């Protein structure tokens, strides 16, 4: 077909050599379809032979066009492309900046908590309680220590009041205090002995009722029960066993006190929190102490968080970020430290305080 098209054109435009032209004319005469195309092309040539209008463009037009379309140097073009890309990125990320995701707190509560009371300190040497040794029962001789231990152990105090020169008192020490039944029965008590003369007024009973004087006190030092005079070991043991009273887990308390001591010495907040949690999990008086320590840690984090929120408004995001960074450092490794770190990161990145969720 290409041959035919080009030959048709060359035939019509009289560009074929004479011999070829003659042969093609014979071909046209034999082929009506070809003849129709040739006729069509002849008409096309005639119809489209009008000269087009003359160009009015001037050289000045070209110069003006060239200046208008002056090519921008490649480095400039690259810089412009980079700027456009940055602008597009900024535009696309703008909605994210306008409505950043809230920060979800995993440990710090949003409800404002009251400042916890300073948790009491329980030296382990007190709570590693031992009621007797090979010489018999062991007594504290200081009321306040005994009451403190009783409070920590939720125990009652068995008070033995003696008087100098009281032979019954000496016998009680020598005989009943070495009796196995008495030692066994005395185990749940915090044992205290006082000289009648040094005893508090409320406990200084009439000595005429008999010696020694025995009292059972609660952890606040209030007398609950008691008896006077020398009684056989069996009666003493029976008295001690026969009463309803708490039975402290001395071993657990000793271990708890040791852990609290270790926690206070630990420089690592994560380890400290772990020890407090172990003690809090045990059901004894020290659990409350451990919980108080955890609450203090939580409050410290919460205070820093809320103060940073005010800092953003009053002092700016940089001050808030500083506060959060300082508060997070000593709590690092704990969920409180993690919460502060997340808020710290947000404040640094967005220059504002995040919406907080629990």
């Amino acid at each position, binding site marked *: *077909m*290409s041959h035919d*098209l*080009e030959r048709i*054109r060359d035939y019509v*435009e009289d560009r074929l050599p004479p011999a070829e032209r003659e042969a093609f004319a014979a071909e046209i005469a034999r082929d009506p379809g070809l003849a*129709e*195309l040739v*006729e*069509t*092309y002849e*008409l*096309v*040539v*005639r*119809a*489209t032979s009008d*000269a*087009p*209008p*003359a*160009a*009015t*463009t001037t*050289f000045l*037009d*070209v110069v003006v*066009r*060239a200046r208008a*379309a002056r*090519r921008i140097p490649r480095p400039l073009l690259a810089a412009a492309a980079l700027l456009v890309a940055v602008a597009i990125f900024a535009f696309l990320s703008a909605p994210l900046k306008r409505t950043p995701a809230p920060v979800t707190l995993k440990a710090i509560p949003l409800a404002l908590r009251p400042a916890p009371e300073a948790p009491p300190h329980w030296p382990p040497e007190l709570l590693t309680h031992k009621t007797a040794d090979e010489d018999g029962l062991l007594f504290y001789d200081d009321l306040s220590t005994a009451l403190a231990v009783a409070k920590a152990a939720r125990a009652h105090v068995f008070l033995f009041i003696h008087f100098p020169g009281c032979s019954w008192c000496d016998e009680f020490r020598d005989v009943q205090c070495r009796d196995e039944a008495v030692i066994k029965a005395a185990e749940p008590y915090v044992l205290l002995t006082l000289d009648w003369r040094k005893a508090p007024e409320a406990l200084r009973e009439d000595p005429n009722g008999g010696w020694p004087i025995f009292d059972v006190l609660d952890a606040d030092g209030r007398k609950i029960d008691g008896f006077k005079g020398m009684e056989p070991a069996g009666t003493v043991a029976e008295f001690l066993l026969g009463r309803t009273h708490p039975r402290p887990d001395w071993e657990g308390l000793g271990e708890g006190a040791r852990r609290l001591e270790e926690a206070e010495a630990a420089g690592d907040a994560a380890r400290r929190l772990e020890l407090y949690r172990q003690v809090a999990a045990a059901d004894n008086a020290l659990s409350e102490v451990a919980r108080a320590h955890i609450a203090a840690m939580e409050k410290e984090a919460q205070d820093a968080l809320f103060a940073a929120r005010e800092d953003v408004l009053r002092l700016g995001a940089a001050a808030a970020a500083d506060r959060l960074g300082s508060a997070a450092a000593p709590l690092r490794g704990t969920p409180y430290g993690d919460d502060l770190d997340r808020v710290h990161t947000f404040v640094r990145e967005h220059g504002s305080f995040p919406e907080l969720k629990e």
Partner: protein
Amino acid sequence: MADRALPVDGDEFRRLFEEHKDTVFRVLYRLAGNRHDAEDLVQDTFVRLWRKREQFRGDGSVEGYLRRIAYRTFLNARARLSRPRAHENNGREPVDHGPDPSESASRAELRSFLLAHVRRAVEELPDSWREPFVLFRYEGMKLKEIADTLGITPKAAEIRVARALERVSGRLRELKAKYGEAL
């Protein structure tokens, strides 16, 4: 003009412009289909030529080089050109094909009527047929050259030129069927 270097100074380039602008304009006028676009394309073509003047190796004619730039300029600009497309008349006034031939029309008038229809038929060809047909008809290109210029296969160039010619031929047959005796 053949086998010479392109001018590198303004005065020589101006002379080259004056020498070739009409040729370039004719090519672009026929491809673009209207004066406005053709004038724009002429300017673009010479701007391109100026920028590419150092790339011209002198192993062909300046005119050939200029034509190739003109074709490329047209192809690059094709999507934004405003050429009125007569075959997409979209509710405007019907296209005027000249007076109807009558019994009393002279032979010259009949011929004029016929040629007006042929011209219109060429103008109304779809762009994808008209462009290779323009290169075939006015530029005298071989089908292979048309294919190279338009970035299509030689077969596609052949088919498009053939279809363009058949479309015009079909219009002629319709006219003959309608005005057979008079034409």
